[in-house]
């Protein structure tokens, strides 16, 4: 059966953290609830588990792609019209290094940006269960649970001090 979403809204971060503790005691898995905030809190402020990511791989892959593209671009354009200048080799390495360097950095930055978006699980076509008050300072505790657990989850959220509770699709 499809899971249901419950969103509790808290005006105080401490209450939201208590709600997280309550959900854990209730047996809700770490993967099934999340905290939504309008500002970055220190990691672990709500007792959430540390999320792992592979963002650091992206710049390296991008840099490698940019390096390859830079070398190919600078060498192939010179080879395409091999005009000997001053008896020097066709491929002139110092200028190639400059353009290749810029290509490498561009690749690294483009891939990093893609990595940030990908690892942040964006773009999201729909906001799902959400409340505009979250960007006004409220902390949202978003729980994904079985339909039969909804009442108990709402009770835990309310006991922790939720000012409002919403149901819907996550």
């Amino acid at each position, binding site marked *: 059966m499809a899971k249901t979403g419950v969103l509790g809204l808290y005006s105080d971060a401490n209450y939201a953290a208590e709600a997280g503790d309550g959900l854990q005691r209730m047996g809700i898995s770490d993967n099934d609830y999340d905290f939504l905030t309008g500002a970055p809190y220190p990691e672990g402020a709500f007792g959430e588990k540390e999320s792992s*990511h592979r*963002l650091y791989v992206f710049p390296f892959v991008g840099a490698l792609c940019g390096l390859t593209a830079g070398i190919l671009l600078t060498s192939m354009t*010179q080879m395409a019209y091999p005009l000997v200048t001053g008896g020097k080799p066709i491929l002139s390495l110092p200028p190639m290094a*400059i353009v290749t360097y*810029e290509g490498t950095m561009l690749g690294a930055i483009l891939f990093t*940006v893609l990595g940030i978006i990908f690892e*942040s699980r964006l773009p999201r076509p729909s906001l*799902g269960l959400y409340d505009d008050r979250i*960007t006004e300072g409220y902390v949202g505790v978003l729980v994904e649970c079985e339909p039969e657990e909804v009442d108990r989850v709402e009770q835990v959220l309310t006991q922790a001090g939720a000012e409002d509770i919403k149901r819907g699709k996550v």
Partner: protein
Amino acid sequence: MQEGRALADRQINRDLLHTIFTHPKWQWGLIAFFGIIVLGAMCAAGYMFNRGLGVSGLNRPVMWGFFITNFVFWIGISHAGVMLSAILRLSKAEWRRPATRAAEVLTVFSLMTAMLMPLIHAGRPWRVFYWVFPFDWARGVYPNVRSALIWDPSAVFTYLTSSTLFVYIALLPDLAVIRDRSTGIRRQIYSVLALGWRGNPRQWKLQIIAGVLLSALILPVFVSVHSIVSFDFSMAIAVKSWHSTIFPPYFVIGAVHSGVAAVVIVMAVMRWLYGWQEYIRPEHFDALGRLLVVVATGWFFFFVLEFFFGLYSLEADEIAVKDFLSAQAPWSWWFITFVGTTYFIPVGMWLFKGVRRNPGLMIIACISVNIGMWLERFLIIVPGLAQKQVMNFTYFTYAPSVVEVVIVIGTFALVCMLMLLFAKVFPLIPLYDIKEGEIARDEIQIGRRKVPAVLREE
């Protein structure tokens, strides 16, 4: 560094988004004012394209004048933005918070403006594609990667792309705030731009890492860009006063000097225009003023070295250029004005705390820096090209035409107009950064005093 009072999220949203949700007439009036100047500059450029470069003051041997001076100037301004933002992010300086977005946006707009200058200078802008774009438009001839004029667009393009993406990534959480406060078509547009941002711990963690990681990646690009711009000059063997190895660091530090000063001007104007006294406080100007004293003195060191190297080599051509620059009026007057306005006047002012904490006086000092830095680029380019050297009877100095003056004034109006337009659709101070500062702020008791403190996560 926490002199302001504590602010609630709702108040931060209201204060920093009022530029977007309210529409006072003066804003549109200012935008229209700058727009008219830009239109005038466009007409001047159109006239020049139609009649040819003959309507400018450019002539042999001075074929680079106001346009290229302005190009180097705007590239310099663009450097402060990301440099300031990146270094302050990496060093976790608490006072960075209200300054980063404006600095980054200034980078993007000044880079875009800088890129216009060589296009206009080319006289036939569409032909630039033949020697810049990596494609064989005709006869199998690709751009010549051995030319410094190819390195330049590759570096500037990388920097512009990186800076724009940097701004966009940092905007994501703020776009979500605007989305949540909007209705109708505006909400739909901001929903698309915010990519469905919800603000869970994973997204915030990546946002913070992104700021640091992108800063670390953009910093080397920033150093390379102005170094490569300096190669346009230092690789030119034929112009003796340009052919110097000190140019890259001299250009980079000069760019930082003019750029940080420009950020101060933008911050002071923002504070005055939008009433952001709670966010941009005297302590921020004080910190920037102290930073500027260090940067200006670093720049002065390189300036003295550059001048000294020219004389120490005992090359007749170099000495002739220095003589032309420093002993022959009116160039010597420009030279004195340049040194005075770039270093002695502003640094003399910044030595006083009262000046550093006064936004009005900071604007005066920073405008002085930018007048000086514009003159610096002009005095590097024109006297070198004028070739008033021993046994040379074909020298020619340079006087800009009205067309060039109008176009240069237009670029300043363009950047002002773009900044104002940006402020109409996006927040110029990062909301989430200010909110994070509020979460981390605290007061601790040391002995009998309560002092402001910031909790910092490592």
